């Protein structure tokens, strides 16, 4: 956990602690009395957790419990929820730009266009999500992209169309984004699927470094993850039926929501 | 009343079929737009009542 004073000479992920001391204990991401329905099935209600700088949380639940839904709700992709989510104290429903500027989301779909090459896929994504890289010359920018591809072992395929690559390789094009990203909050949905042994170890090392530098991570994964410092959010704890929830959360969600 | 007898009202000097066709259609359409949702509401309430009874007993 980096101290809240000036960060050490660490790398330049724009660290969370700021000039006026932001108490590292002050939560950056707060999720409060969250209720989600799928069709007329209640996924979870009253879900609550918060993350301070350097925290990681793993969402656990069997298939269909709502792991992906929860991640999409926090990422702001879904508006169909009751309850409150704040990033840096701002409600994410109304302040989407602030959250998305500092968040990287990797879903089930890698977001890789099969017609394009890995380099082209990274290029347009980097322009959209990592604007600070675009500041320098074209050559320098391409060099950075190739470097990221090299880190996921795709430098030989940088110019091959993605539909010629295997599913695992296509997912790694998605993962290459993590090496370009300087977003404090990472939301990764099943990042370890379809990756080989050393790929998993490399990714685990990357995530733990991200946390070490004061980043936050929300991850779902079927395999065991040996990254320390991860809390657990078990959806089953928040699973209730309709009867006693609608009455009680119906009002509380409205009251809280009204303030942000 | 402008018309002296009911049959005159019905014929309306030749235009009766058009006028009564229009008003007949209006009665059907406006009537249906009121009755159908009313019936659907009662059916839904009966279903809820049946569902709650099955849970209670």
């Amino acid at each position, binding site marked *: 956990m980096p101290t809240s004073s000036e960060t050490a000479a660490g790398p330049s992920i724009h660290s969370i602690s700021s000039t006026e001391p932001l108490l590292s204990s002050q939560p950056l991401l707060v999720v409060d009395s969250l209720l989600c329905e799928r069709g007329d099935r209640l996924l979870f209600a009253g879900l609550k957790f918060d993350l301070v700088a350097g925290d990681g949380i793993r969402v656990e639940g069997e298939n269909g419990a709502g792991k992906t839904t929860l991640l999409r709700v926090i990422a702001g992709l879904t508006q169909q929820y009751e309850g409150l989510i704040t990033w840096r104290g701002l409600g994410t429903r109304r302040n989407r730009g602030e959250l998305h500027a500092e968040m990287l989301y990797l879903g089930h779909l890698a977001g890789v266009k099969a017609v394009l090459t890995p380099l082209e896929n990274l290029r347009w994504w980097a322009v959209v999500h990592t604007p600070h890289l675009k500041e320098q010359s074209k050559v320098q920018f391409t060099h950075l992209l190739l470097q990221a591809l090299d880190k996921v072992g795709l430098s030989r395929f940088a110019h091959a169309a993605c539909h010629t690559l295997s599913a695992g390789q296509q997912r790694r094009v998605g993962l290459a984004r993590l090496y370009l990203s300087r977003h404090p909050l990472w939301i990764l949905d099943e990042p370890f699927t379809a990756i080989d042994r050393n790929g998993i170890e490399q990714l685990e090392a990357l995530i733990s470094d991200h946390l070490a530098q004061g980043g936050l991570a929300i991850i779902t994964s079927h395999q065991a993850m040996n990254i320390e410092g991860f809390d657990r959010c078990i959806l089953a704890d928040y699973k209730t039926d309709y009867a006693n929830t609608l009455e009680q959360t119906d009002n509380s969600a409205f009251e809280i929501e009204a303030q942000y | 009343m402008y018309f002296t007898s009911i049959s005159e009202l019905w014929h309306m000097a030749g235009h009766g079929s058009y*006028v009564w066709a229009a008003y007949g259609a209006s009665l059907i359409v406006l009537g249906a737009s009121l009755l159908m*949702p009313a019936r659907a509401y009662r059916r839904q*309430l009966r279903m809820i009542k049946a569902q709650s009874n099955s849970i209670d007993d």
Partner: protein
Amino acid sequence: MANWQWFHRLGSPKWLHGTINRWLPWVLVSALVLLSIGVVWGLAFTPPDYKQGNSFRIIYIHVPTAVVALAGYYAMAIAGAVSIIWRMKVADMALRAIAPVGAAITLLGLFTGAVWGKPTWGAYWVWEDARLTSMLVLFFLYLGIMALHDAFQNRQGGSRAAAIIALVGTVNIPIIYKSVDWWSSLHQSASIKFTEESTIAAEMMYPLMVTIPGVYLLFAAAVMLQMRVQIAHSERHSRWLEKYAINRA
């Protein structure tokens, strides 16, 4: 923050269900009274038009339906805007309720217009009549919204999509109506003149002043009935509805 409470309570289906049950009888009765007075007055007591004869009496149902059809679409757009900006379930329900009722009334307007056209212009469907052609486009706009509602399994998505297309439709309606007017005036042969206002004697217009509000109120009643059905569907798990259903029997 207190003043926001009533606004949010406005969003709660239980409050709306109570309000509808309180106001529905009044709206329904006054609609039926107004309509029956206006129709009987228009059918039996007003003298026929010197040019069109008795077929002009269809005006007392055609004009109100045409007016309410258009007003219904704008009401839907307002509900859509409210549901997009304040995300209120009630607005979604209103939008979902207005669409079928509006489509039915627009269809009625088309039918009465066509039936009125036969004795007056000699043909059931006269393309040069800009009002009728625009109402046909309006009917397709209503169908588009209903189709969109059905296409989505999750109701929230469907309501959002319908709200957006309703707003886009509202921006387009004036343009559509004006372009159809321009088009019909361009292609109007000398024999059929639609543009100048039909000169109906003043006292023949009075029944209209009664049937128009009558159809408006009936439209409102139908929409309320539809919304009540949706509340009963979406709140079927809630305990307040269960209690209401039981002691209502």
